[in-house]
């Protein structure tokens, strides 16, 4: 078991994709690196991604994907209305293809370059074994290259001397220990679990109006330390939202109920009114944004009936959920799951023999819900959604005999900014000057996005930003160290 | 009270008793194929009368002899007879007793397993109901030989009649000075407690049985020492099946003309048969021959598809010779520890469960599935490989029955059976794959029909 070194060339704060990519890159360049991880487990949120974004990769070329860096750059900047930092965006997009090859060299296996939504370029490089496999591969490589990895050892502050980074203070067994380092790479994964900051920067009440997924113990340590060291702020208010239901200990992620809830049938607010063209479910960001408008209640409902269930059992899903449940996947366990939820007295999943009864159970005015369904069924009959222009292929009336409602919550996959960086992932101060020796990437760094996640032009970008910003930070730091 | 006085007083008291031979036990006809040692007194002795046991069966003469020849001589006698434990594992009894005797401790215990861990076996029910004293005498001989002062007789809690009989027998023994301080005027002091124990497959595992006696849940434990060295409350503990103890008492009684004690086994024939029976047969008789003799008809007439021998974890045996090397065997397999083991199975409870309906009548996949489902139900849940393995295998066998499975599934099934064999603590898990593996060996065609042709051979 490793012990805390007195000094190193580089201290990396966090062992997710950003930190590990930086650590391996730096170690490849001959730097002595120590990675500090607050948690007992490595990888943090990076364990969850199923694929990652790249343009002009070998895999894409083999599949005749002709989407170019230039197109992607333009689309990504358009998506943000040029609120994003163009040099950061350009740097990440340009680096992305090489990063795929580099990951393959580290032992990561990609199975396909695909998309997980319609009408988008094939930028999503699917990983065998998910992010966990990336974390494992990078940790093994890092260790083989002499990187010291210290789980359960949070960094509490940065040390600066003569305006340059000179090390970190870490906590070990309740004691604070100083570690000298010329370079610090901040990659602590944002602040998704920091109730106060989420309220302050996004306006949401954490836990009721919005719930983080795949984030644990993200209190914004890295961002705070960088700010304390004089870093400027950028993009702190952007979060990657999504709509998911049902939520609770008794519901496994990826269960049939969750898949049913994501289907473009009828969705209503807590007041019983439709709120969107349900086919936006195909794109995570729009659906997350639409859902989050109703933050005071914190939830909406997906309403379906026996005919929906029948369809999902026979024809399968319209909207795939994750890589493992593609469109067409059949929900054979749904009845059992609904029954179990009802038997357990869950308030997340409800069923009734009439709309009135269902309305009563979900505490919605039965008149409102009845009118909503009547109107919707009318649109279905005429084949035109007068309200939200939903594609007629997905206009399917609710006829019973049993009706179901599942509560869907606004969740988010992480916070997407905080520290201002330049295209070299150097941290800059409020006067746009570089803080020597300080680098940041991943969820701690801002500038890649505008006000929301550019899902259509660049799916898989969050993990890609992490990996690429880590590699770029590593390369920049090597130049700084003159290695 | 010394032995002579015991016998004299018993004789006097018995004169006034109405003999009720076997009235409270199952009266079993001795078939010509039987050879009785453990069941020697069945139907001949009044199970409720200690006097009857003493006078007509030479009762407690074995204990008397043991006390007079000394501990080591008792063990030597078992050693000479080559007695192997009747609980199923066939461990050499003398070796176990000596280990326990030589273990140094201030206190030792003897535990008698009389649970009949699954409903197919009736050994305890029969023996305790028909002749409890043969077991009790064996128990005391064991306690004397290893130096224990406290015995626990664990009886299936469902056997209310037997438990009442035993408790009464213990009272009588106390009256006669066969329990308590200075038994038969010797230095030997001992007591016996009857423990009503819930019957389950794991309760038949000695480590689990010990936990039950400690007031804990019936879970088998990986042991680092034999119970004979470190058992109940960490003290040396001799754990024996009641059949072994009944044989011990016979052996020590050494009555002229008694058959060689190590040569028989109590078996129960059940399943698709005319009548279920519990009999004691000479080792070496083949499964098929025993069935024919017991049923009084030829195998062909009986319409046997297979016989599961040894209890729920036993392998299947069927007509014809199976491919060599696999688990399972032919009905010609002789009932001996060695032959059964060679067939990849265990003596276990030595039950012959007949699966009928003729060679094509029952689908072997169904047969294997039902066997696995029973084991899934009985798994205590402790070992991952057994808990999940049995559950997954039932599910996979259901898939095969529904013709939803593939050849890769079959591979995984074999891997799961191996994982259970190597990864389980107790016999249940270790042997849980045997019924399935033997069904595969013996009736591969049935599996193929489901896997490749998508139909059930039994539903043609």
């Amino acid at each position, binding site marked *: *078991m490793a012990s805390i070194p007195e000094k190193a060339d580089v201290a990396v704060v966090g*062992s997710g994709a950003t930190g590990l990519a930086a650590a391996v890159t730096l170690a490849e360049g001959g730097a002595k690196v120590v990675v500090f*991880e607050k*948690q*007992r*487990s*490595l990888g*943090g949120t990076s*364990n*969850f991604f199923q694929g990652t974004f790249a343009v002009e990769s070998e895999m894409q070329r083999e599949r005749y994907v002709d989407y170019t860096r230039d197109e992607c750059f333009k689309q990504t900047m358009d998506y943000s209305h040029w609120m994003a930092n163009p040099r950061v965006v350009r740097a990440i997009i340009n680096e992305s293809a090489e990063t795929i090859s580099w990951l393959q060299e580290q032992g990561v296996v990609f199975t396909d370059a695909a998309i997980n939504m319609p009408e988008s370029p094939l930028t999503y490089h699917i990983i065998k*074994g*998910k992010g*966990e496999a990336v*974390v*494992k591969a990078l*940790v093994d490589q890092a260790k083989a290259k002499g990187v010291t990895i*210290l*789980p*359960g050892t949070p960094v509490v502050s940065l040390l600066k001397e003569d305006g340059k980074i000179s090390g970190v203070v870490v906590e070990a067994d309740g004691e604070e220990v100083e570690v000298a380092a010329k370079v610090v790479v901040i990659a602590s994964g944002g602040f998704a679990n920091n109730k106060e900051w989420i309220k302050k920067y996004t306006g949401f009440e954490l836990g009721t109006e919005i*719930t983080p*997924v*795949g984030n*644990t*113990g993200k*209190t914004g340590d890295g961002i705070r330390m960088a700010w304390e060291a004089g870093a400027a702020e950028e993009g702190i208010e952007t979060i990657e939202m999504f709509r998911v239901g049902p939520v609770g*200990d*008794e*519901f*496994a*992620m990826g*269960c049939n109920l969750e898949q049913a809830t994501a289907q473009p049938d009828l969705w209503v607010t807590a007041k019983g009114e439709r709120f969107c063209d349900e086919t936006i479910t195909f794109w995570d960001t729009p659906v997350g944004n639409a859902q989050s408008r109703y933050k005071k209640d914190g939830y909406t409902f997906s309403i379906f009936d026996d005919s929906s269930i029948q369809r999902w059992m026979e024809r399968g899903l319209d909207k795939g959920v994750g890589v493992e449940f593609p469109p067409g996947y059949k929900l054979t*366990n749904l009845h*059992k*799951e609904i029954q*179990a939820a009802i*038997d*357990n007295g869950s308030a997340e999943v409800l069923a009734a023999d009439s709309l009135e009864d269902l309305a009563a159970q979900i505490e919605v005015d039965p008149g409102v819900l009845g009118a909503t369904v009547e109107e919707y069924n009318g649109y279905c009959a005429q084949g035109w959604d007068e309200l939200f222009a939903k594609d007629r292929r997905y206009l399917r009336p609710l006829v019973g005999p049993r009706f179901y409602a599942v509560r869907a919550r606004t969740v988010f996959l992480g916070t997407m900014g905080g520290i201002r960086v330049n295209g070299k992932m150097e941290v800059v101060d409020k006067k746009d000057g570089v803080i020597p020796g300080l680098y940041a990437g991943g969820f701690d760094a801002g500038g890649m996005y505008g006000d929301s996640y550019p899902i259509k032009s660049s799916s898989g970008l969050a993990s890609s930003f992490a990996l690429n910003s880590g590699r770029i930070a590593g390369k920049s730091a090597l130049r700084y160290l003159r290695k | 009270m010394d032995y002579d006085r015991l016998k004299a007083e018993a004789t006097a008291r018995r004169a006034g008793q109405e003999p009720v031979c076997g009235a409270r036990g199952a009266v079993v006809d001795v078939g010509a194929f039987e050879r009785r040692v453990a069941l020697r007194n069945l139907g001949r002795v009044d199970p409720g009368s200690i006097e009857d046991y003493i006078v007509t069966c030479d009762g407690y003469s074995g204990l008397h002899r043991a006390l007079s020849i000394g501990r080591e001589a008792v063990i030597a006698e078992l050693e000479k007879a080559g007695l192997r434990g009747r609980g199923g594992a066939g461990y050499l009894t003398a070796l176990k007793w000596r280990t326990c005797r030589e273990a140094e401790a201030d206190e030792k215990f003897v535990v008698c397993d009389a649970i009949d861990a699954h409903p197919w076996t009736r050994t305890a029910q029969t023996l305790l109901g028909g002749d409890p004293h043969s077991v009790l005498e064996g128990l005391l001989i064991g306690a004397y030989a290893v130096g224990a002062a406290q015995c626990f007789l664990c009886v299936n809690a469902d056997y209310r009649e037997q438990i009442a009989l035993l408790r009464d027998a213990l009272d009588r023994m106390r009256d006669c000075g066969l329990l308590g301080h200075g038994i038969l005027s010797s230095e030997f002091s001992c007591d016996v407690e009857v423990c009503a124990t819930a019957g389950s497959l794991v309760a038949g595992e000695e480590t689990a049985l010990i936990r039950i006696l400690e*007031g*804990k*849940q019936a*879970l088998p434990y*990986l042991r*680092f020492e034999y119970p004979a060295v470190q058992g109940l409350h960490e003290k040396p503990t001799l754990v024996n099946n009641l059949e072994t103890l009944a044989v011990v008492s016979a052996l020590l009684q050494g009555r002229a003309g008694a058959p060689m004690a190590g040569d028989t086994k109590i078996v129960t024939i059940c399943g698709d048969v005319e009548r279920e029976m519990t009999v004691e047969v000479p080792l070496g008789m083949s499964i098929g021959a025993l069935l024919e003799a017991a049923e009084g008809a030829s195998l062909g007439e009986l319409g046997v598809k297979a016989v599961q021998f040894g209890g729920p974890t036993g392998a299947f045996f069927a007509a014809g010779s199976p491919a060599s090397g696999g688990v399972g065997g032919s009905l010609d397999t002789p009932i001996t520890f060695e032959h059964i083991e060679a067939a990849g199975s265990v003596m276990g409870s030595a039950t012959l469960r007949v699966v009928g309906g003729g060679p094509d009548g029952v689908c072997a996949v169904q047969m294997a599935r039902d066997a696995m489902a029973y084991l899934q139900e009985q798994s*205590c*849940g*402790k*070992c*991952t*490989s057994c*808990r*999940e*393995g049995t*559950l*997954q295998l039932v599910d996979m066998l259901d898939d095969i029955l529904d013709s939803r499975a593939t050849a890769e599934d079959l591979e*995984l099934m074999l*891997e*799961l059976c191996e*994982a259970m064999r190597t*990864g389980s*603590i107790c016999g249940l898990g270790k042997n849980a794959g045997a019924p399935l593996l033997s069904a595969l060996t013996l009736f591969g065609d049935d599996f193929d029909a489901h896997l490749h042709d998508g139909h059930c051979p039994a539903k043609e």
Partner: protein
Amino acid sequence: MTDQSTESTVTLTIDGRRVEAEAGTSVLYAALDAGIYVPHLCDHPDLPPYGVCRLCVVEIEGVEGLPSSCVTPVAEGMVVQTQSEQITQARRLAMELLLAGHPVDCGICQKYLNCELQSLKQYLGVEESRVKRRSKLLPVNNSNPLFVYDPNKCVLCGRCVRACWELRGVGVLYYKKQGKEFHIFTREGASLAESGCRFCGACAEVCPTGAIQDKEGLIKGDNRKAGLVPCKSSCPAEIDVPLYVRLVKEGDYPAAAAVIREKVPFPWVLGYVCDHPCETECRRGEVNEPISIRELKRFAAEHDDGSLWRDKMTPKDPTEKRVAVVGSGPAGLTAAYYLRLQGHDVTVFESLPAAGGMLRYGIPEYRLPRSVIDSEIKEIEAVGVKIETGTRVESLDALFEQGYEGVVVALGTHKGQKLRVPGANSAGVLIGTDFLRDVNLGNEVAVGKRVVVLGGGNVAFDCARAARRMGAEEVNMACLECREEMPAGPDEIREGEEEGIVIKPSHTSTRMLSEDGRVTGVEFLDVEAFFFDEDGAPQIDVVEGSLHALEADTVIFAIGQRPDIPEGFDLDKTDGGLIELDEFTGSTSREGVFAAGDAVSGTASVIKAIASGRKAAVAMDKYLGGSGRIDRKVAPQVEVPACLGPGPGFAALGRAADRCVIPDDLTGNFCEVVESMGEDDAREESTRCLQCDLRLKIKTVDFWGSF
């Protein structure tokens, strides 16, 4: 190497490396100790090996198959391989089986990143499964205090069962079957309390997945370990509460007192008047009622002979540095005490005739006997702290000129206030602090027969109850807060009411009624809602038309106090008139001047004042070139047995009855109102402790990333 190895040491080869291990060690720990990671789940360093998960399988030369390394003892010359294709395959299958019934819910699981199962899954790379995965769909058991059990997350490793039976000897948890699925539960499915659970938390501590977890919100703060022992972490002075409660239980009272003495010089005072945040947080409170921690502290202090700490709490070698402390309340005396122990020459200046500050001049005698204050101050003086009473310090410069190198300002909040309502200056309208000071000084205090006290805090009660003792026949207390939100402690409210104080909650006074310049009553409006707006400013919604009056010949304002800081101190102050401190250095705006107590925090509790005094002592000591380490271990180190034994009826044990004795005739009677706890009661009460700290002694399993 070989020559050095003793008989109890075994040498073996693991992955081609020579490894030494003590005989009896398992192959697993021989490998782990040598820095070779072997995945394992069911094994736990504090529990007997189990051998059921099959993740730690290895190859051993001459041994058939793949033995579980956790149940295989090392042997001389053993040759072990921990990695091979065959091993990987077996481990993966074992992991697939463990995960078969486990939900894919890492993303929303509280245990994520502290979950051994997730870490193992990551290590073994078991994303795809050949065995069928299923949802168990079992209900989550939320019905017990402190813990949540989610059978869906349980992988039946049996650690909790072993922890319950073999580590703690409690014996509550069993393997149970529901349909085809297994879970862990009590024997007959009864509640944990009914089953004899001791709520020690060992089961949750050893659970490698999120199956048994502490209820959300019960662990306060970022630091999980501290959060698990909330009595200690919520104590401002971080007194090791579970330890002294345990020592009381074992009958070692001097040791218990020594534990308290390690952190505070006022154990006995606290035993009377501590506002005990520890009891509010006590986890036993979730089971039934919290431990009566304060009474046990008083008991320990009363039964202390000083034998264990008095010889050890002596000053270090003199540093030749002189320190002045302004104010002799609990904050000032605490700072003085610890600075003296660090070897400094300390003088305390007190403007009033005797030392003790609010202990003596705020808290009335019936709550805190003067002998108790005297006795504890005597101990402080005994180590060489000089106290100059009747000496008011007007200027810090003067102190520095006298050669003091540092000053701790701890002058409390002695300045009470009145509301600016009409009639507030009428005769008979008093200020609480002044009133109490006069009472405690023995000055003549004229109190009429009908008294109205304005305020709802502890000081208000002190005023009200003192007024009763000064002869008032009818005492009304009016406060803004509704009854549930009154700031006074519940025992204070209860005792006050027993003494005949009438509480009028949700009242706001609009003016003092008077005749001839003398107060005759108070006019009130009923309060509909009292809250603080987003800027923290108090807001009052009144009930229209609720104007009414209470007759009174004396009105006492007890609505908060401020410090009285002499101009000559020249210290920066906050908007609220308190002394401003640097968050990181603890220093005031003047070099060498530190501050502590109510003057910094606003009127708070005795224990907070003491904690503040400790902080100031640390900061001052560092400033004077010391280490700042003021803690001394004086209590004996005791090995705590891990076994608790069965606990039938444990959960139902009730809190020791209140021993409050209100005299029939209060007038002039300042005798103490709460009796001491007897030895039997103390033992019974301490036996109720859940011993939450025991859990922290359970070892933590290192994940693969640590190797």
